[in-house]
């Protein structure tokens, strides 16, 4: 079984997000980049599913040369080979086209993404890729098992969960619970340097939307402290001032 894992390169979760003075682009100075945490779960799942078989795990990233450190980390964790589509990942629509194009030319049994990237939080790529390839997709999966030529996928719904049986090939967005992220070991790190990393050119995709400006959330006013011995005052504030109870 061959699995394609889509990896995005995102600011470390501890990053303070600030913008250029005209608010048109995020500041990248001093920001550490990491594999998107959900993509790490997807990658771990792909390795779990192929370990001890002749199946291959290929990671794909749409990004400029600077993302290669992140791609090498995915190889160190255990992917067999990598592909980088040499382009700025303009938006999910663009990225999904690149992935779908690659997967059309190189068929896979499963395509895994993270449920969302922690920068644009779109939850779009899995469903877009599924649609572009004409195959099923589950955007937010909590569990994935393979039974013969079908995947058993558990997905979250409001107030519960749903279990689906879906024929391969399919696209799944991995969320927590799918697998435990793996930490690269020394052998992995050494071998990552020599694993194949192919760089391919992007396909043109018409632009449908673009970000014009970023805003930071309104700062909250300062906190009103209430004494631990007077919780009634808190109830009163929540009722009369905040009007939330």
């Amino acid at each position, binding site marked *: 079984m061959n699995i394609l894992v889509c990896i995005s390169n995102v600011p470390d*979760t501890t990053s303070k997000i600030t913008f250029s003075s005209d608010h048109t682009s995020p500041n990248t100075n001093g920001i550490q980049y990491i594999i998107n*945490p959900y993509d790490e779960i997807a990658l771990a799942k792909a390795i779990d599913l192929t370990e001890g078989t002749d199946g291959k795990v290929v990671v794909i990233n749409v990004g400029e040369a600077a993302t290669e450190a992140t791609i090498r980390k995915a190889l160190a964790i255990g992917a067999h080979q990598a592909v980088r589509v040499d382009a700025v990942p303009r938006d999910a629509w663009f990225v999904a086209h690149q992935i779908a194009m690659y997967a059309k030319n190189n068929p896979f049994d499963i395509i895994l993404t993270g449920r969302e990237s922690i920068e644009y939080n779109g939850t*779009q790529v899995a469903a877009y890729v599924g649609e572009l390839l004409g195959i099923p997709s589950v955007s*937010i999966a909590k569990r994935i098992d393979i039974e013969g030529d079908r995947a058993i996928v558990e997905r979250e719904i409001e107030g*519960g969960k749903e279990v689906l049986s879906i024929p391969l090939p399919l696209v799944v967005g991995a969320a*927590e619970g799918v697998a435990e992220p793996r930490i690269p070991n020394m052998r992995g790190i050494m071998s990552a340097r020599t694993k194949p990393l192919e760089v391919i050119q992007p396909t043109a995709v018409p632009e*449908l939307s673009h970000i014009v400006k970023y805003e930071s*959330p309104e700062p909250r006013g300062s906190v009103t*402290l209430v004494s631990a011995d007077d919780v009634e005052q808190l109830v009163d504030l929540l009722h009369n001032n905040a009007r939330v*109870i």
Partner: protein
Amino acid sequence: MSVLVYTEHTEGKFKKSAYEAVSYAKAVADLIGTSVTAVTIGTVAPADLATLGNYGATKVLHVSSEQFAQFINQAYASVIAAAATHVDANVVIIANTFSGKGLAPRVAAKLEAALADGAVELPQFEGDKLNIKKTAFSGKAFAITELTAPKKVIALNLNAFEVRESGGSAAVEEFKPEVPAGDFTAVIKDIIRITDKVPLPDAEIVVSAGRGLKGPENWAMIEELADVLGAATACSKPVSDAGWRPHSEHVGQTGIAVSPNLYIAIGISGAIQHLAGVSSSKTIVVINKDPEAPFFKVADYGIVGDAFEVVPKLTAAIKAYKGN
């Protein structure tokens, strides 16, 4: 030109997120001088369908064929796209629920529409384009996005737009779209519903607790507080990592992002990754024994104190208030 809104339901009942979506669709339609059609898939009583008019829909397209009884993402996306074409919609609104998130990109791709996911406000139209504010960086920022394609799909965040009732009633019409057989390859094997608890993603009040609670055996007081408030329970990441609580309760940058009217954080330090997922809550209350806990910096109300003393007192005080 018109606005189409997809109205999701659970076993025939619409949830608040569906009413929010219709209210939002109506406000969008008013901006461009057009009307709202809702599309509902699966069995819903005619009287319930007509009530969508109360939130601003003029017409409801109802797809009641047995074939669509269960939610199959691909097939539902085909239905919504067909409905959009049927009513010549240039804007399609979908609530950003778990299912909605899987549908919106497919619908957008079919219509070659631009997609704004996680919208938090009404758009601003400029001719054929629109600007819309959406969440980004896991709640650490917003991105104002310009949608330039002629057709637009907007996935509206839950609890981001208030329900508006206008008192109307909608005309219900049966809709029978052609959907390719290939859309039905997925099969639902099981649906497990947790009915005795308020679901977290669309809860109006969330009571959340962290490592300060020391162990899973201490969650009874959290559940009791949630109970008296009609709230959902949530937790920080280390708590679900340790297996004290299920993953579905984990909020934050790598968990669920919530924006309830009231978020009560108990024994949670307020790490940047946690705050990312909760900072758009309308009111935040923090209970922590450490006055230096970073969470106080983003709280509206705070109590510095031991959770094991404060929480039972707060529960009692709310009970007393509700009793009156």
